[in-house]
């Protein structure tokens, strides 16, 4: 399909975007042909998101040119991008939950487009069948699963007869089976001549589907390649430079005594569009890591809130620490008994953005720093300095505000703070999400070290590879149900993938399936 005489669909010439304190895109040039599936690779913070937002008109570049079908264009807004034929599926979807699918799609269309289409609902149904998207225009978005929402986003682009489709980490929210379905759709589109710009950091996917790849690092293009001529390892090396030592398999351990267990926990959601927890049951043993796989929004947040006590409803007889019920205790009391948490949301939950690192250390680690109600500020400063040096947190000092740190450094800080309390039980959600490879390695090692000291760790993650790397036993959540738990060596990605899609629900818990 790469015929030389064809005019490129999209050409970027030295695009540059400066943010305060960060050069997000540094003279980026790349070319995309019609029908080409092009991967944009790079670590978090490499500038991928900024680049695609520039193409889609959400971000305006400081310098550089964009050529569309060979002609120079200025894309000032997403509506201009859409008029050109550029569609984008965002990583965090830009859908409106209180509106129907049809209304969501209507909002993206101009009056003339609407007029041309005529009956929008009929058009949606027609395209839905043509591409196997299975989208019902009258449904409200808040009733849809994550995978369905992504299909709505794709539909939103298809309705406008898109010529370039941009997908920002589309597979990170899907089960392996859903990913296969998505790839079918993308291949069909590609055959019809639609170009696809595919952002990912999952290398095996890139080698599977993409024709070309551009690799970004630190805001610059560092390499381009044809993925099926490369191996995941060689691409990884281009992405992260010298750091590319893939973590080898770590030793798996067998837990000893049960420290913490959740017993038949069912709880309705507190949030309007939240997940209902259903018959959750598991044990956590000293000296092991229990991994919980699952696509976001299947009850992970709710489960974490109940265990930590942030959800203040009384579940006394459903949570036990060392045999004692703790479900009726306040979050602070549970912490004092030796529970610690690393939340998914680092800034705004795990750390207060506008407070210094010292203050953020005091946030959960107050033992020994409070004397008759007064804060020992000097003590907490010294402690913070020791955390910073032990975990190699890059910052100006203990006075730096949490929001001034990069995601990876803040995560190392939070992880260090929680581990520093010598917890019996650590609940850890998405510890390396959005973190660069170096920080991820440090975080993994800190977790394993804590495990080897005898702590029980519950590791919730969307990254299956990470779970297989770290977890001693594995499980998955789907729609508020927790699957059975198996030893990691006795399972494989395929089975966990099936569980993430909920196949265990009917076979293992038939009586609750209707609930």
């Amino acid at each position, binding site marked *: 399909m790469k015929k030389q005489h064809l005019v490129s669909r999209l050409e970027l010439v030295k695009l540059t975007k*400066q943010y*305060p*304190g960060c050069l997000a895109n540094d003279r980026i040039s790349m070319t995309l042909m019609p029908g080409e599936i092009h991967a944009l690779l790079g670590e978090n913070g490499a500038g991928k998101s900024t680049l695609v937002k520039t193409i889609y008109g959400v971000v305006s570049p*400081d310098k550089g040119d964009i050529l569309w079908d060979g002609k120079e264009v200025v894309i000032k807004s997403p509506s201009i991008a859409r008029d050109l034929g550029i569609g984008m599926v965002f990583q965090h979807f830009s859908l409106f939950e209180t509106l129907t699918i049809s209304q969501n799609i209507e909002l993206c269309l101009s009056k003339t487009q609407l007029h041309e289409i005529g009956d929008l609902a009929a058009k949606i149904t027609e395209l839905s069948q043509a591409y196997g998207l299975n989208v019902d225009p009258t449904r409200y978005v808040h009733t849809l699963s994550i995978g369905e929402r992504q299909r709505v986003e794709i539909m939103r682009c298809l309705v406008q007869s898109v010529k370039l489709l941009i997908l920002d980490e589309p597979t990170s929210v899907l089960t392996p089976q859903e990913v296969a379905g998505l790839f079918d759709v993308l291949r069909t589109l590609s055959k019809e001549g639609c170009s696809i710009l595919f952002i990912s950091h999952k290398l095996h996917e890139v080698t599977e589907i993409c024709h070309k790849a551009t690799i970004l690092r630190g805001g610059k293009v560092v390499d381009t390649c044809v993925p099926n001529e490369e191996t995941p390892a060689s691409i990884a090396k281009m992405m992260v430079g010298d750091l590319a030592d893939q973590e080898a398999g770590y030793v798996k351990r067998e837990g000893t005594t049960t420290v913490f267990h959740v017993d038949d926990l069912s709880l309705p959601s507190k949030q309007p569009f939240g997940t209902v927890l259903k018959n959750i049951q598991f044990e956590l043993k000293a000296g092991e890591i229990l991994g919980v796989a699952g696509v976001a929004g299947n009850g992970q947040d709710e489960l974490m809130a109940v265990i*930590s*006590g*942030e959800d203040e409803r009384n579940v006394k007889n459903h949570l036990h620490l060392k045999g004692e019920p703790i479900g009726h205790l*306040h*979050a*602070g*009391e*549970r*912490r004092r008994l030796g529970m610690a*948490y690393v*939340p998914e*949301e680092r800034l*705004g*939950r*795990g*750390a*207060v*953005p*506008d*407070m210094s690192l010292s*203050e953020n250390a*005091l*946030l*959960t680690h*107050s033992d020994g720093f*409070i004397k008759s*109600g*007064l*804060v020992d500020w000097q003590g907490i400063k010294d402690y913070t300095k020791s955390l910073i040096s032990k975990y190699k947190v890059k910052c100006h000092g203990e006075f730096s*505000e949490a929001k*001034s740190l990069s995601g990876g450094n803040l995560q190392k800080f939070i992880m260090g703070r929680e581990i520093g309390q010598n917890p019996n039980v650590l609940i850890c959600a998405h510890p390396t999400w959005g973190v660069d490879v170096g920080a991820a390695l440090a975080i993994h090692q800190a977790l394993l070290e804590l495990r080897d000291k005898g702590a029980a760790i519950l590791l919730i993650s969307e990254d299956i590879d990470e779970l297989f790397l770290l977890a001693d036993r594995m499980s998955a959540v789907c729609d508020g149900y927790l699957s059975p738990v198996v030893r990691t060596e006795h399972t494989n990605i395929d089975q966990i993938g099936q569980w993430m899609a909920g196949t265990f629900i009917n076979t293992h818990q038939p009586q609750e399936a209707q609930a």
Partner: protein
Amino acid sequence: MIRIQARTEPSALMKFVSPLLAIVLTLIFGGILFSAIGKSPVQALQVLLIAPLADSYNIGEMFVKMGPLLLCAVGLSLCYRANMWNIGAEGQLLAGALGGSAMALYFVESESIFALPITLLAGVVSGMVWAAIPTFLKLRFNSNLILTTIMFNYIALYLLIWAVHGPLRDPQGYGFPESAMFSDATLLPTIFESSRTHIGILFALLAGVVGWFILTKTHLGFQIRVFGADEPAARYAGFHGKKLSWFVMLFAGALAGLAGIGETAGPIGQLVPNVSPGYGYSAIIVAYLGRLHPIGAIIAAAFMAVLYMGGDLAQIEMGIPVAVVSMFQGVLLFFLLACDFFINNRLSFTNQATN
């Protein structure tokens, strides 16, 4: 070319400069306004800002006004730090005046040395009760604190008016809606001779120091700040949000109640319908101008008291309506909010984006 750029770190300097800049801009605005209505701006600003400090009597009066402003503002600073939008200082002040005055009238024949402390306590408790109801409604029924506290301001006002027309009216008062004059045993002692300045100002200054101590030195204060800045983080850390909410609200209610009884048992000496010229509302501005910091509130309250005094003088000497004070307060807050923009942003005067 002038461009607005976000700062990488918020400017500590601007946090202090911003209120001063806002005051200067407000004065410029005032000058233009006075010229527009045909008054000499120089004279008007002189009367408004300099005259209140010109002699000892005026300074004493300034302290009389500063007391209630500061008491309310210290409480509000803590509330706002905890993200509790208590707009009810006015109502809590009125409730304190009403409850405390009822107690003072009980002691109207008394010479007991306990009369004054009990009267003050009654005022404090009344203020706390008035703050407690909206707090309870918020924590138990999730009702909007801003709206309930405002409604309770109106309710307190009408309750007070009803009381001075009814049960608390002076039987010998020829039907005027006023209570009897309080006994000397329930009046706050004055500090200076020939001035109305009473020990209420000392209570207020003490409240400022206590507020500062709580906020910066104690774990409680730390928890309040976290709770206000980032509620999910406070919940994650296991702080008791409800207890913190109760604490700041009752603290604010107590101080506002003290301010209220401090007015009737202080300069006024009886319960009248117009106990407060809107001190509870002005205290919101004071709290903001003082950067929600109790020590800052002391300075801001002094400034606001000068403005109040100046407003009175401007009416007497230049016939400028006294409402000019509350208008200035609004303008001041506008300018302050606008200047605060530059804490997180700066102007850069470059031709092209460099660095």
